[in-house]
C-alpha cells in the first residue's frame, strides 16, 4: 500500500466507527426480537373476561388477527385504546389478552372506553403472557389463520406503526387466506 494511502487509515477507521454509531442512533435497544416469530401460538385454556367460560387457542385462530396484550394498570394501553377501536371499526379482528389484571377493573375500562376486542382472554396470573414471552404491556401479535405468530410489536400501536409494518403484513395474510 502506498505510504500516502496509509495516512488515511485513521480517517477510514473513524468513518467506519461513525457509521456504526450513527446506525445505533436509530435503533431501539428495547425492541427485542420475539422468540416466537413463525412459531405457533402457545396452547392455553383460560377464562374469558367476565365469564367463567374457558377459551383456548382454537377460539382465537382461524383467520389472520391481532392479539393485543393490555391491562388497566398500563398507561400506554390507554393511549393505544382509541386506535384499536378505529382498527376494529375498519374490520380488523382483534383479540385481547387482559394481562395480570383485575377482571372488574378491566370490564369497567371496556364499558367506559369502548370494546374493540372480539373476545378477551383473562390472563390473571400472567401465565399465558409468560408463554408468549410478554415482558410488558402493550404488546401486539399478528397471528395468521393457521395460528402461527408472524409479527410482534412492543409498545403502542398507532397509525404509523399500523401503516408501516402491521397493515402490509396483515393484508398479505388476509389476501393469502382469501385466495385459498
Amino acid at each position, binding site marked *: 500500500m502506498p505510504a500516502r494511502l496509509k495516512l488515511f487509515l485513521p480517517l477510514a477507521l473513524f468513518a467506519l466507527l461513525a457509521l456504526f454509531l450513527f446506525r445505533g442512533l436509530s435503533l431501539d*435497544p*428495547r425492541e*427485542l*426480537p*420475539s*422468540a*416466537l416469530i413463525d412459531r405457533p401460538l402457545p396452547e392455553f385454556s383460560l377464562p374469558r373476561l367476565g365469564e367463567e367460560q374457558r377459551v383456548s387457542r382454537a377460539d382465537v385462530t382461524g383467520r389472520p388477527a391481532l392479539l393485543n396484550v393490555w391491562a388497566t394498570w398500563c398507561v400506554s394501553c390507554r393511549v393505544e385504546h382509541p386506535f384499536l377501536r378505529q382498527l376494529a371499526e375498519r374490520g380488523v379482528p382483534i383479540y385481547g389478552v387482559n394481562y*395480570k389484571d383485575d377482571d372488574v377493573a378491566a370490564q369497567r375500562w371496556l364499558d367506559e372506553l369502548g370494546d374493540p376486542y372480539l373476545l378477551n382472554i383473562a390472563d390473571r396470573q*400472567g401465565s399465558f403472557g*409468560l*408463554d*408468549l*414471552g*410478554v*415482558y*410488558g404491556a402493550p404488546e401486539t401479535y399478528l397471528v395468521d389463520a393457521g395460528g402461527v405468530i408472524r409479527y410482534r410489536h412492543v409498545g403502542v400501536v398507532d397509525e404509523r406503526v399500523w401503516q408501516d409494518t402491521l397493515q402490509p403484513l396483515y393484508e398479505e395474510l388476509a389476501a393469502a387466506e382469501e385466495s385459498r
Partner: protein
Amino acid sequence: MNLLRLPVCLMALLFAASVSAVIETYEFSSPELEQRYQDLSGELRCPKCQNQNIADSNAPIAKDLRKLLYQQLEEGASDAEIRDYMVARYGEFVRYRPSFSGATIILWLAPALLLLAAALVVVAVLRGRAGRGGPELSAEEQRRLQELVTRAETEENAERHS
C-alpha cells in the same frame, strides 16, 4: 449545621436504595436448590430492564420469572431445562451467558479475533521498523565516506592542537 444536613441526607439516600430493593424470599427445600436459584437468577437477564439480571430487578416481569424459577427448581427441573424454557420464550437475549451456537457465535469469537488482529498489526509494525535500515552504500560511496571521516578527524585534531 444546616450546611451539613443536605449532604448527609443525600448520602443516607444512597444506602436507602440497597435497603428498599429487598426482594421476596423463598423457602427452599434444600440449600443446594437455593444455591442454584441464586446462580440462575444471577445469570438470567430481565427482559424489561435489560441491564439487570432477574435477581436485581424490581420489574414485575423479573418478579414473575423469579417465582417461576423457584417453582421449576422445586419441581426438580435441571438447569438446562430451565434455561431452555426461558430461551424458548424470551430468546437468547435472556441469558447473560449465551450458548455457543448460531447467532451468538460472533459474541464468543469476537474477543479472540480482535486480539488476533491486534497481534498481527503489532507484528507487522515491528517488522516494518526492523527492516528500515536504509540502502546499502556502494564501494565508491564507502570510500568517500571513509575519506570524509578521516578529513574531519584530522581537522579536529589540528584544531585541538592549535
